[in-house]
């Protein structure tokens, strides 16, 4: 009798699982979501994890989901992250949100997760496996945007110094491609030097200091974020006039910009992705678990800071952090338009470039 009721229970449970698919709005309060993150070694990733933590804890407290556990691999390695995802499958998570170490090499593990009935949402470092959702940033446009700004600000043109990110990472390739495309369209600008700053101020400072003596007069520095402050320090140390340096939303960069603006009316702009994109990925995963129809490919706008709202953005950014926006459930619900706006979308709209 006992075994019978138990098996009846099991059958019931299985039916419940299969019935969940087509049901429109299922309850997600029992669902568990995990974050698989491959790297935590810079301010952007730290801010990203903090946003996830804050948002996840609030969602658990509100009873929207049962768990929102973050996991970071100890080394930035594909094989390790693949093992991490496989462990999450075993731990019985209902959804896995991934910031991937490689767009392709995790596909095997992601497919296994999908086959086990798990929702996989990738963001920032996206995966190409078709069964997963992708919240991508148009990095190419982010590079091009800098040249569009420069063409407006410095119509006469001039020499550009390009600071790139980490060699061999596709984000670096994309932003750089955008910058070069922009430079081609605005032929008054010429990229006379290019260094790798690894998205870190100290590395950038060293790299720029190394190339500066060989360079002619520089009109502007185009960057990828996390490198503007280091570049400014290198120019200062070399005793050269500070060119227009595009910033990347890091607090130290915005702070330096503010000081220069107050001292001599220095003008530039700053652009990067809001680390809070992890919270958007969380809500997209929750929506998919809820049974909502969400398109597989979403594009998230980047966060831009301009001369007029520098103080406002700097004020909202903590020391050592990155200018940020956190997303809400409402944003994720809007996401079936294919692109996502942040909360207060219209008020902030001028700070964003709406992507195609």
């Amino acid at each position, binding site marked *: 009798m006992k075994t019978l009721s138990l098996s009846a229970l099991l059958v019931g449970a299985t039916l419940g699982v299969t019935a969940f698919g087509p049901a429109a709005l299922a309850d997600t309060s029992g669902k568990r979501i995990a974050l698989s993150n491959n790297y935590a070694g810079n301010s952007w990733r730290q801010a990203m994890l903090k946003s996830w933590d804050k948002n996840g804890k609030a969602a658990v407290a509100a009873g929207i989901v049962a768990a929102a556990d973050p996991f970071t691999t100890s080394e930035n390695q594909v094989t390790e992250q*693949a093992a991490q995802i496989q462990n999450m499958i075993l731990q019985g998570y209902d959804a896995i949100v991934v910031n991937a170490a490689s767009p392709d090499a995790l596909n095997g593990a992601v497919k296994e997760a999908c086959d086990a009935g798990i929702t996989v949402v990738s963001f920032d470092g996206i995966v190409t496996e078709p069964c997963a959702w992708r919240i991508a940033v148009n990095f190419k446009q982010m590079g091009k945007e800098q040249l569009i700004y420069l063409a407006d600000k410095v119509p006469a043109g001039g020499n550009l110094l390009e600071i790139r990110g980490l060699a061999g990472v596709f984000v670096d390739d994309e932003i750089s491609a955008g910058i070069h495309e922009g430079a081609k369209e605005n032929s008054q600008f010429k990229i006379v030097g290019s260094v790798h700053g690894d998205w870190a101020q100290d590395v950038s400072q060293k790299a720029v200091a190394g190339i500066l003596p060989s360079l002619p007069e520089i009109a502007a520095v185009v960057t990828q974020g996390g490198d503007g402050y280091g570049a400014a320090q290198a120019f200062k140390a070399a005793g050269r006039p500070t060119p227009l340096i595009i910033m990347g939303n890091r607090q130290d960069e915005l702070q330096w910009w503010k000081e220069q603006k107050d001292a001599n009316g220095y003008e530039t702009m700053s652009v990067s992705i809001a680390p809070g994109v992890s919270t958007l990925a969380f809500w997209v995963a929750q929506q998919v678990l809820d049974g909502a129809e969400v398109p597989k490919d979403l594009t998230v706008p980047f966060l831009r800071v301009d001369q007029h709202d520098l103080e406002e953005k700097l004020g909202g950014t903590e020391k050592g952090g990155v200018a940020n926006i956190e997303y809400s459930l409402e944003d994720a619900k809007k996401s079936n338009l294919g692109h996502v706006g942040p909360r207060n979308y219209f008020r902030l709209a001028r700070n964003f470039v709406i992507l195609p």
Partner: protein
Amino acid sequence: MISQLTSPRLLRSLLPAFSLTVILLAIFYLQPRAMSYFGLNLLLNLALPIAFATLAQMCVITVNDLDLGIGAFVGFVACVGVTWLNDQPLLGFLVLAASILAYGAMGALIHLRNLPSIVVTLGMSFVWLGLALLVLPTPGGKAPAIVTAVMKFKTPFVPMTIYASIAIALIVHVALKRSAYGAVLRGVGGNPQSVARASWSLVRAKITMYALAGFFGVMSGISLIGLTSAADANIALRYTLLSIAGVILGGGEFVGGRISPIGAVLGAITLTLAGSFLSFLRISPDWQIGAQGAILIIVLALRTVINRSEARKLA
């Protein structure tokens, strides 16, 4: 009879199996879901490439050398595997065969010029990484369908990884520990002078072991892309240290030709499981590498205890 059962030699050879059992039981306790075909498959499937890389490392360690380039080499093989081997299989085969020959040539160079293997293999690791980036500049590619099919094949009763691990461990065990030439090869690590005086060619032995290492490196890279289905140049950099740890955990020693193929495979699996075990324990990633180190130290300490008792018995 009892003295035979507690003999240090037996205890030492049982240690790798013992550590594997302990970790496996701990995982089953923490995550009962792992105790199924599906669970074992997920836990173990990434162990096969590591087991091959560990065997490659073991071949080099057998002749008293150390290979610091095996991780980069596996990455290179993976990159060739998802590009040329898929698009032009013949070219892919030739390149992989040539890379095995290159490994053999590296062994000859190290022996003939009397170079430190650490320097040569570390230097070669940059060559492999550079070649991998040339073959596949940005992550991607596609593993040949047959490789993926083999790696994802669902064998009866237990996952394919377990059959494959047993098979390769036994084959290498017979080849190195039971065959006549295997004894010579191990002798090159134990006492090269006497092997040379017995008119065996040392350079031939080194070339054989390095080429074998190259072969297992190729197997590691190919089995890896079968699981990931795509590759990038940095995909296996971690394998260098994992493979050394696997050999030592499995009862091998850095000098003297003392190696154990079965132990090395068990060591590789133990290391793979240790990672999962720590993540099931919810240990923060900052501590995970340290915790993995602690597991290694515990096993090595146990071995030292056994070795001491052996020394005491002999004295």
